[in-house]
């Protein structure tokens, strides 16, 4: 074990170690740092894969100014959970199928992962997944939101999405009549 090293030498060792270390450090819009497995990040996010391949990863924390710390924490959490949930032999084939295969139902752990999120956290995570090009996470989060929306009335949707009703009463009545069939019970 090397405990005592000259400062310059230690610095040198650190640099070499960071060049091929197996995690990357990500920095949220509010300056918090998160570490994530390099392999999982590259596999799950096309944007991070590009940054890693292009060498634009900053060891002191790669700036992700579009993503708040709560969303980034969830992204990192998802990557780490994902890294643990798939046996490594299956990694390559699964990463290829993400792009072409039709939507696969969320796995049990993915369901639990999104179920515990608040509305705000979920919507922030959708945006983060989209920004980072994380197809599977985008699938799983969009799926969760669409499940929340099923069977809801336009009023309830406006509330969840914080949308102002900009129809006049008459217009709304007209559309409702035209689409009456869509208002029967699901």
């Amino acid at each position, binding site marked *: 074990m090397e405990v005592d090293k000259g400062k310059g030498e230690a610095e040198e060792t650190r640099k070499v170690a960071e060049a091929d270390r197996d995690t990357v450090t990500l920095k949220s*819009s*509010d*300056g918090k740092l998160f570490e994530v497995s390099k392999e999982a990040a590259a596999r799950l996010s096309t944007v991070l894969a590009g940054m890693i391949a292009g060498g634009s990863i900053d060891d002191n924390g790669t700036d992700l*100014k*579009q*993503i*708040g710390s709560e969303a980034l924490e969830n992204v990192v959490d998802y990557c780490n959970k994902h890294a643990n949930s798939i046996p490594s032999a299956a990694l390559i084939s699964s990463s290829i199928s993400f792009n072409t295969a039709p*939507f696969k139902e969320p796995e049990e752990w993915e369901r639990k992962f999104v179920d515990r999120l608040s*509305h*705000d*956290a*979920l*919507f*922030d995570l*959708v*945006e983060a997944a*989209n920004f980072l090009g994380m197809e599977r996470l*985008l699938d799983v989060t*969009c*799926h969760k*939101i*669409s499940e929340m*929306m*099923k*069977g*809801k*009335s*336009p009023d309830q*949707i*406006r509330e*969840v*999405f*914080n*949308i*102002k*009703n*900009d*129809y006049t009463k008459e217009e*709304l009545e007209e*559309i*409702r009549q*035209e*689409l*009456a*069939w*869509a*208002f*029967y019970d*699901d």
Partner: protein
Amino acid sequence: MDLSGSKKRASAATAAADLTDDLIVEILSRLPVKSICRFKCVSRHWRGLISDPAHRKKLPQTLSGFFYPRYYRLDDARKMVCPGFWTGYRAAGFLYIYSGVTRKMVGVMRLCQSNQEVYL
């Protein structure tokens, strides 16, 4: 702290209000057609997104691109005519649709639940 270019949110607004149109369409595309149509009532913007031809490929559609969209009451009539477009004949729980132009059969629809009215 410099937040220029970073994510900011007015305290009153929820995260959902920040969603881009693409993401809204992405979410809507996972819903059944009935829900999607109902959500045309949410706002003018949503109706625009749902009706936008550019999103048709993504969103499940009613047949309204082909048919003139409205309710048709079948009542006792066995034949429904939409001049120039199509003619429908009802028989044994099915609606047989013939093109008004070629006079050839273009589709069969099963009439379920309500045999009295159909939305095309």
